[in-house]
């Protein structure tokens, strides 16, 4: 988890994105307590005020809840988690779609290309 951050994009959003993905992958389970701000700062090598900002942002998004005096926890609200999942899916698809369109691919080419990729024909050995 010691990957570098992109130094020209807001770190608080990059960290929020990482944590959201961990929640969706269930590396962080519903109701689980997130590391304290200091622990998270040390783990990810970023400024503690940035981590605080990340936690506030995640709270605003609904993926975590802070309980007074106890810390920050992954939400147990399945509806919110499902929405998060759908939103991230949509964001990813939309950026894929815009990139492909910019390069002049048709919608059919995108769909068939994606299907081929998934069925493994074009996929190299490095998928994760």
């Amino acid at each position, binding site marked *: 988890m010691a990957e570098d951050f992109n*130094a020209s*994009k*807001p770190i*608080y959003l990059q960290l929020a994105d990482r944590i959201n993905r961990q929640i969706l992958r269930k590396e962080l389970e519903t109701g689980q307590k997130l590391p304290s701000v200091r622990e998270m*700062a040390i783990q990810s*090598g970023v*400024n*503690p*005020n*940035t981590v605080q900002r990340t936690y506030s942002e995640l709270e605003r998004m609904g993926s975590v809840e802070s309980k007074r005096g106890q810390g920050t926890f992954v939400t147990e609200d399945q509806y919110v988690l499902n929405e998060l999942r759908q939103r991230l899916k949509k964001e990813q698809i939309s950026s894929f779609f815009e990139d492909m369109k910019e390069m002049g691919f048709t919608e059919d080419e995108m769909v068939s290309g994606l299907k081929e990729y998934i069925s493994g024909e074009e996929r190299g050995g490095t998928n994760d």
Partner: protein
Amino acid sequence: MRSGVEQMIEFNQVTKKYRSQAALNDFSLTLPHGKIIGLVGENGSGKSTVLKLISGLISPTKGSVTVDGEPATRKISSRVSYLSELDAYYTFYTVGETVDYYKSLYSDFNQSKAEEILDYMKLDRSKKVKDLSKGNRGRLKIAVTLAREVPVILMDEPLSGLDPMVRDSIVKGLLSFMDYEKQTLIITTHEIKEIEPILDMVVLIKDGTLLKVEEVEELRIEQNVSIVEWMKQVYQDGGMGK
């Protein structure tokens, strides 16, 4: 700068001359509490002079420097912990003796914190300072500087000349052991990439004058630039305008 934040370190129209050469020129700057601040600029731009003035090691030729409203004279060392660019310990001491020595110098020195940092940095207490690698001497300096319970910690080039592994352990060490609710940390460095994720603010100086002060995350949000990119831009503009 945000209002309501108590201002802690203040430079008021400071000029510092060494013989006839000005190292700082009509330099004014106010820095708040509880931040990690990077002081950046070319070689010879006056970074070390700024730190030495805050620590009271040198005094301004003109103008004033204050910490919490108090003039930064030699007495200010009770509030300021300063890590020099140079090696500042006796090489015939062991690591353990160096810690004891610092403890005898400063009443605010927290021995148990120093021990924790030594463990974290994996420093052998029985080893003589002269037998330590350059990296471990760098770590030892960090340990004794961070172990003081003072509101201001100054570090002049703590990463300079150290390999990436050591630099990483020092950056993590700063995050682990600094009391960021009570302490302000000011670092001068050329290793900006390593330090930038942990900075709150960056202060850019050139030829002894202040070019700009920015909140680092705001640079990324508003201008989509890293500190290095921003520095280049500001240097090109000569620091004029926004």
